[in-house]
């Protein structure tokens, strides 16, 4: 066995949630500009960063991502007006949840990457890959296959049947309001 095989350098897995209007387009531009950036990044295209919620970010870490970032439009440029502002809040909130659990909050970040900023897209990818390399592998990677629970099935609520009417017929409100 050669020594080079024994010491495998750690190659982090980085997940990037990119909004379709800005960061994702910037990614395309980075490609057209033939910019080189860390190949560790897995891009997930989303309609708007406002769609990102804490559980989505947490799940990425739960499934072993070493770093996660959300990249959206510049302030004031969001296609849906304030999606990126919400994402900034969500990312800040999720960082606190990470700290609570015992994972480094620096593994998560938000970046503004305008559609015209190909180099900015590459910088974000490089920055998060660098951070993941410094922090080392996500400790949850070891236990990805360990079952730890799930969501139970919930039946739909039962509504009691209408009581037997003594005088006339009882009808549901919905029947009353539909014009026949």
């Amino acid at each position: 066995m050669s020594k080079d095989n024994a010491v495998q350098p750690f190659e982090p897995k980085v997940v990037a949630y990119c909004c379709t209007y800005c960061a994702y387009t910037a990614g395309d531009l980075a490609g057209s500009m033939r910019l080189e950036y860390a190949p560790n990044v897995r891009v997930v295209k989303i309609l708007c960063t406002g769609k990102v919620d804490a559980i989505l970010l947490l799940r990425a870490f739960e499934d072993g991502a070493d770093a996660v970032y959300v990249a959206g439009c510049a302030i004031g440029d969001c296609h849906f007006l304030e999606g990126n502002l919400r994402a900034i809040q969500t990312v800040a909130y999720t960082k606190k949840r990470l700290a609570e659990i015992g994972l480094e909050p620096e593994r998560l970040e938000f970046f503004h990457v305008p559609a015209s900023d190909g180099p900015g897209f590459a910088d974000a990818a490089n920055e998060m890959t660098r951070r993941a390399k410094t922090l080392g592998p996500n400790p949850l990677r070891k236990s990805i296959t360990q079952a730890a629970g799930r969501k139970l099935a919930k039946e739909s609520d039962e509504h009691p049947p209408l009581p037997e009417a003594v005088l006339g017929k009882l009808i549901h409100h919905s029947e009353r309001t539909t014009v026949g």
Partner: protein
Amino acid sequence: MIVAERKPLEQVEAMIDGFERILVVGCGTCVAVCMAGGEKEVELFAAELRMKGKLDGKQRTIDEITITRQCDMEYLEQLAKYVDDYDAIVSTACGAGVQFLAERYDEKLVLPALNTRFIGVAEGAGVWSQRCMACSDCVLDQTGGICPMTICAKNLLNGPCGGTDHGKCEVDGEKDCAWTLIYRKLEKIGRLDTMRKIQPPKDYSLMTTPGKYTHEAFKETQAEDEE
């Protein structure tokens, strides 16, 4: 509605320490609206507990389910087929819901994941404020729709006190003086004369806990049943 907030993770961790199978039960009504214990929050909370457990090298199972309400027996019933499998149940309902869940499954350990704060309103996204302390004898007709029991730090029915300071309360300079608000509101709707009326002392015996109330219509049926 009831406003609550989640307890710190470490507090809940300490409660469930040593248990292997845990069921987190969410409530889909008040606490879902105040983003403390609805389906989404339960998903996040259960995921946090799972991740924390793994990081601490624990072998434990955290399952989750969110029912419509925990303060109604018929919804609690849906849990019957599951609860036997668990060592402990963590409820993310308000205190009332936790108690009713514990009452329905009285052989189970039921633990609270939230701190119940108050009856309040949503002031803006993610901000709630207390508006009523359930005094059981509402006086809002006299006070322009502003509750002196809740908004006034001294619960004064015949305010303001001498400490009102340019519309702020002497107890907490950050907070508005309830009676200044009441005065302004009554002035606006032309009912300042109601301020001259002296409110009789409040019957605090109505607030003796635990409160219990039977709807008029049901009182009669019960009486009939007894006959």
